[in-house]
């Protein structure tokens, strides 16, 4: 195990959206800060830094996590996906397209985190019920939309049944 003295930087290698990236961070650096500042993944938004709002949600090793509650050093060797991975060739995926169609975002600050949580849900359960979607979106705070358009968009993306 590496032992670091105060002020030492740890080298971190991880896979971000399919690409190998590396950087250096103090052991106390938050993963959210590392992804934004060292990796340029500014789609990771920091909204509360205490794990409630969900803006910073990413998928790490196949699980949706709050990147403000993880340290950068914990991501050594991890496979991380952020919102930047969802439209690799610039074409919105079905969920993103449904968000646009249903006006499921206004300021857009909470949106990346919600998208990542929904992507995580769909991988575990491709046909979730409305209640499950509400439950997952219930882990995020959004102040603009009032949520209903987000739920409608997710339902539409999943089975085209939303109005």
């Amino acid at each position, binding site marked *: 195990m590496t032992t670091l003295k105060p002020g030492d930087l740890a080298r971190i290698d991880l896979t971000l959206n399919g690409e190998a990236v590396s950087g250096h961070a103090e052991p106390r650096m938050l993963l959210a800060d590392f992804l934004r500042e060292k990796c340029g993944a500014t789609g990771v938004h920091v*909204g509360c*830094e205490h794990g409630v709002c969900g803006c910073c949600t990413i998928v790490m090793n196949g699980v949706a996590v709050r990147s403000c509650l993880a340290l950068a050093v914990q991501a050594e060797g991890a496979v991380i996906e952020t919102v930047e991975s969802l439209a690799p060739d610039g074409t919105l995926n079905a969920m993103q397209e449904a968000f646009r169609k249903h006006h499921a975002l206004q300021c*857009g600050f909470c949106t990346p985190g919600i998208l990542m949580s929904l992507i995580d849900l769909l991988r575990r359960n491709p046909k979730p019920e409305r209640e499950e979607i*509400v439950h997952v979106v219930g882990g995020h*705070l959004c102040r603009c939309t*009032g949520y209903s358009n987000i739920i409608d968009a997710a339902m539409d993306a999943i089975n085209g049944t939303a109005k």
Partner: protein
Amino acid sequence: MDAAVAGREAEAPWVGRALPRKEDAALLTGKGRYADDMPVPAGTLVAHILRSPHAHAIIRNIDAARALSLPGVKAVLTGEDIRKVSDPFLVAVKEPLPQWSLAVERVRFVGEPVALIVASDRYIAEDAAEKIDVDYEPLPAVIDPRAAVAVGAPLVHPDVKSNEVATRSFTYGDPKKAFAEADHVVALEVEYPRNSFTPMECFVVVADYRAAEQTFDVLSNFQGPFSAHPVMARALRIPGNRLRLRTPQDSGGSFGIKLSVFPFIVLMGLASRAVGRPVKWVEDRLEHLLAASSGPNRVSKIEAAVMKDGRITALRMDNLEDYGAFLRAPMPGPLYRMHGANTGAYDIHHLEVTNRIALTNKAPACLIRGFGGPQLYLAVERLVQRIAVELNLEHIDVIRRNLIPAGVFPYKTAAGALYDSGDYPRAVEGAIGDGRLEALKKRRDEVRARGGIYGIGFAAVVEPAMSNMGYLSTLLPAAVRERVGDKNGAVSLATVNVDPLGAVTVTADSAVQGQGHATVLSQIVADQLGLTPDDIVVNLEIDTQKDQWSIASGTYSSRFSPGTAVAAHLAAERIRNKLLRIAAKQLNILPDDVELADGKARSRTNPDNALSFGRVAGTAHWSPVMLPEGVEPGLRETATWCPPELEPPSKDDRINTSLTYGFIFDMCGIEIDPVTFQVRVDRYISMHDAGRLMNPLLAEGQMKGAFVQGLATALYEEFVYDERGSFLSGSFADYLVPTATEIPPLELMHIETPSPFTPLGAKGLAEGNCMSVPVCIANAVADALSMKDIPLPLSPRRVHALMVGEEAPPPAGLGTAAKQEKPKDGRDITGKGAFEVSAAPSEVWRTLLDPEALKRVIPGCHELILEAPNAYRAEVSLGVGPVRGRFRARVLLSDLDEPHSARLSGSLAGPLGAASGGGVVGLSATEGGTRLVYDYAVTVSGTAAAVGGRLLDGAADIIIRKFFEGLARQVGKEETASPHASARKRSGIIAWLRALFGGRK
């Protein structure tokens, strides 16, 4: 529009279509450009703010020496530094209420900025904050506005001699006579709570002082109004052109809150000048909840003169509004923004209003969505419900009887508002019609028949938009206004630019917050120029050195639809008229015969005679000499829109406070769970008349968002202070923002009575549900419980208190000794427990009194110094929930009864808060060694108090456990812990850790 050219377009117009947004492609892919995402100049330093843990205290001394010695720390600024190089912010009243960007001499609310640390990164800046020693002399604080204006209250600003810093009374018509002649007088007192709509992105400022040009170049997610720009320039002691304020392309929500970033723009500007480098500051969420901004809380006494049939002939109201510790510009806006509309949707001719401004030791209140509307309607619409109850009439019938009738618009209200258009009876009948009200009543009867608790509420509100910049002048008596000059009007600006290839760019004076203004502007301009919205680029970044702006610029008071949108329409119309004349010459036809459509300029009568849009546009650039006579070269038009209806206040204080007035009628049914006391919204119908809807998809998005914010005000959100001014709702675990699981369905309905005062017929629409929903739900709860006083937010605890009474105190004997002694204020933590230590009491006693041993035992202790016999000074690191920091502690041991018991008392102070309290430790010999019992009560204030009792209880528990575990180790033997349940109920460390890391996930 020139009637001659206003022909039928080939296609239906873009305005009016439910078009998805231009903005979304970037925001959905993580490519938004928010302030914190923007590149900063090389060498930019980072700032962190040290804030007051006290609600009211004198700053005796600030010692930053230890902070400055940390590697990476560049500077520490204090109020004394700031005061030498800047002026206090301008305020709207004449009283001496100076506020600088850092506290000077005294602190007046928990969270007030006390010092600014500038360092190479944020982590280091936060380290440094822990090493600044501030010596405070705490003073009594005043929190409740009624207490604040009472005789003998502690003064927030001693120089003002009173906490009621301004009062004005207004009389319209003859209310005295109306009350004397009334059949009934119905009175009510209501209290509107303090809350915010907490945008998900906090404040961001990047300030770069350019010494050579003596210019502050600032990027910030400021939202306007830009009337704050001269306030900032004056504070910085510079002419306005030396403050270049830029806003980014995207902002993570605002709802009024991001006006309040302006003191920090000044602070970071001063810091940048002081250190000679650019300085960046990103506010964190704890700071934001603690002290960013909030809406003002208000106590209103209101009464109505009512005739037997329910007709209201006069209203009398006394509004006591609490703005916190300072009157931040443009306060007291919420008291006056609604002034003209004080009689709401009703045809009431006699009115008496008294507006009183109170200051308290709370964070300054400022702009917030709804801005005075929610407060006003809580009083007026609750009163209308009370009139129905007291006169034994149907609530809906009292509303109907008093509504302003159709056909009388434009309608002048008692206080001078000129309601532009509307058909209130049609809107009300539309909402309740088709059996909707009958269905709701049937539902109520069914639930009540099975023993449930169900109520129906209504609210009728007028939603003003685009504020008259002169409304605050009403604060001054007419004679003073005459002397200093009346303010009035409201300027909107937009520019349409067409390049040589015919590509169109639009800029405007709206500061983005997520509404989708770029999309709507592209619809408006596309209609004028015969293009599609996709053809048009809209850039709503603002740069005060280069762009069109006025003091009215920004996004607030729903001014986009009646203001900025109109300016863009006018600018595009001018471009269009110019292009028509150019094209007419080239097509060799009359301008009347030219139309712009399908990306072409063509003859209406002979569509084959056509030129591409780009070709015509290019002429203005490439061939200026060939232009028709009188047509200026180039294709750039800036239009100014300043509607003449926004007149200054009249001599008798009548003021048309806004340009457009929409109408909302809400109706809801709620059910109260008799076990959990939770209020559940069963059905909610909201009928809107916002004039012409320019994009129904976006309009409804605004209404749905406002609805949930109104719901949050009614049921969830509140900034809570204790009596001493400690702030108790400083994290998202304590300040409850509704999530998707709490949201009832909303049924939106619309009628459209276009505004005659705006060329597009559109009115503002984004704030109305913030005004209507809290009172509609309060009315439904009043109906359900048959009660008069309905406090907000209607949390289960409050509903329980309404239905059952306040919770009884625990039976005598259950409280501990420490608990009985507990101080009356602050976030109190009490507890007791016991440990077994395998050593004799005398050995344990010795360890407790040995500074070296104690230092090893106290968790997180860096230093422990014996200052006097049994008096210690220590420096310790402690963590509570999401915050962790260094504290300086003073501990005194007294009542020493060797080796049986001792009393500990002391205090703790650090950047995250302060604490004081005490406890008793008792030792008794047992077979295996010593049984050690402890009992404590501590009061905590500052950030540490704000993050929540659950966390504090758990943290205190763990710290004390660690202490005794350490003590046991120190005396060298094994111990067995048997901590008994502390005085408060808790479910152990696992639950605490879950609360700490899980949030509400």
